[in-house]
């Protein structure tokens, strides 16, 4: 396959302009000085008027400001609590098998009316790699990756083994994520 291989633009020896240190140094300093004054003006205006000017400063002032999270974001995995107050999980075990580091462990049980449910559902938050394969594997939309990324750390690893109660989140709170996965991931038009 013919390709275009192009030689880089490089003079064989240094040109005179490059040899004189001073010119390029001045040019470089002018660039950074321009950034400095632009940011200074931006910061002063923001401080005086109280609202952020057109974003010259890249820093997001966490934790007072939170970074905007896209809808595809994979945060902490949580279990969905259905409208009737019970978890939607039927303890099929697909998420347990799909998880690469094997952080989920389920013990299933059967209710009187014949439906299955997880008797214990343990997700080890310290082992989870936030890959989202459990969300893809689940046929019931019972485990989703929420948009949580804060306050996930503990001082003691045993505190990070989340049981079912710690993981259950009501369906209304996860509406955005559920809508996203229905629209984008499981949609028929993907195939």
């Amino acid at each position, binding site marked *: 396959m013919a390709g275009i*291989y*192009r030689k880089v633009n490089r003079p064989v020896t240094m040109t005179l302009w490059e040899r004189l240190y001073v010119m390029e140094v001045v040019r470089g300093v002018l660039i950074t000085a321009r950034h400095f004054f632009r940011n200074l003006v931006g910061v002063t205006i923001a401080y005086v008027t109280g609202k952020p000017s057109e974003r010259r400063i890249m820093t997001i002032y966490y934790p007072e400001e939170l970074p905007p999270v896209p809808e595809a974001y994979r945060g902490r995995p949580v279990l969905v609590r259905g409208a009737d107050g019970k978890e939607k999980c039927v303890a099929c075990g697909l998420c347990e098998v799909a998880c690469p580091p094997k952080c989920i462990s389920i013990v299933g049980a059967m209710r009187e009316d014949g439906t299955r449910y997880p008797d214990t559902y343990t997700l080890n938050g310290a082992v989870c790699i936030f890959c989202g394969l459990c969300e893809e594997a689940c046929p019931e939309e019972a485990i989703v990756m929420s948009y949580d990324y804060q306050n996930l750390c503990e001082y003691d690893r045993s505190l990070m083994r989340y049981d079912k109660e710690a993981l259950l989140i009501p369906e209304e709170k996860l509406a955005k994520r559920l809508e996203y996965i229905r629209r984008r991931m499981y949609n028929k038009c993907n*195939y």
Partner: protein
Amino acid sequence: MMKDNRMDLHTEPFVLNMGPSHPATHGTVRFLLKMDGERILHCETEIGYLHRGFEKHCENGTWTQVFPYTDRLNYNSAIQNNVAYALAAEKLLGITGKMPERCTAIRTIMCELARLADHYTGLGASMLELGALTAFLYFVEARELVWDLIESVCGARLTSNYVRIGGLSTDLPEGFAAHTKQVFATNRVFWTEFDKLLTKNRIFLDRMRDTGALSREDSIAFGFTGPLLRAAGVEYDVRKAHPYLMYDQVDFDVPVGFAGDNFDRYLVRMEEINQSIRIVEQVLAKLPSGPINVDDPAVRNPSKEAVKSRMESMIFHFKNTIEGIQIPAGEVYVPTEGSNGEVGFYLVSVGGGKPWKCRVRPPCFALTQAVGEMVKGGFLSDIIPTFDMVNLIGGECDR
């Protein structure tokens, strides 16, 4: 007289340990240096401080569970590893010709975005080591914007886990093209500023010109690929030599140097940034619509409507997740052009749902073995630009 005196003095070379934790050895590498004052007599490289047993891990899970691990190989350009593995697995399955066009287009876009992120990081970190701290932060800003793009597509900036065997995990979000255009406008400004700060600056030129040079023949003998090989003057780019994805349908140049020193490597990488932006814009302009997954339930999980309504789809979903995709026995190696060089996966299958052997060819392994050769006879300060331009990614070299 002085020479006689000197020969009588007992001198020994000065041993310096540029150990695994040193600000300049990013990626945990150890250099044991024997020096004569400031000149390096011998440099011994020691890698393996980040070995995590990637290949053994892969043998424990199914074919799909390898994807999150490939992210952590070259963690600067994670999606390229995903794509390389997926291409190898698809070739073994024999479905390479049946991949939907939209899928190859999106894979091309994400590969090039990952290449952008990697070059920004590599060049930026090099400038940090050389002392130009502001230039580093400008490229880090540019990288942040590219990571925002990647995050909007797959949900994570670095551990993307985006590609699947037989397709992708999700489609592009709405407004992706507009977002990309905005990001590229800003990044072009950053590129220009970086260029103006450094490329003609004599202080920078003195550091990079004629340092760490390796001739054409030596580069080929060491097994170089990627920007370092092209900087030495060899015209080889996997995207042009063995085209994959959409690279034969887009127009792009491949920069080639001629002196093989650090300055050429820097120029090659800078130009590759421009060319990557060009590729992404071209692919976005003619992005085909259609499905993103191959329509074979044995390979790619069926859609959830099908799973909830049809029994066969449910069976395939369960079998794919529990037993893994059944890939027929055989072995395959597919080379792709990563940002550091040729990344390829050598897969061996014995017919089940788990890989028998999943070996990755790390590009910077071949590059690191030559560092000792490149810095011999030079100064201690020359290790810094040379090693930075090698852009060793510990995760990839040590796996």
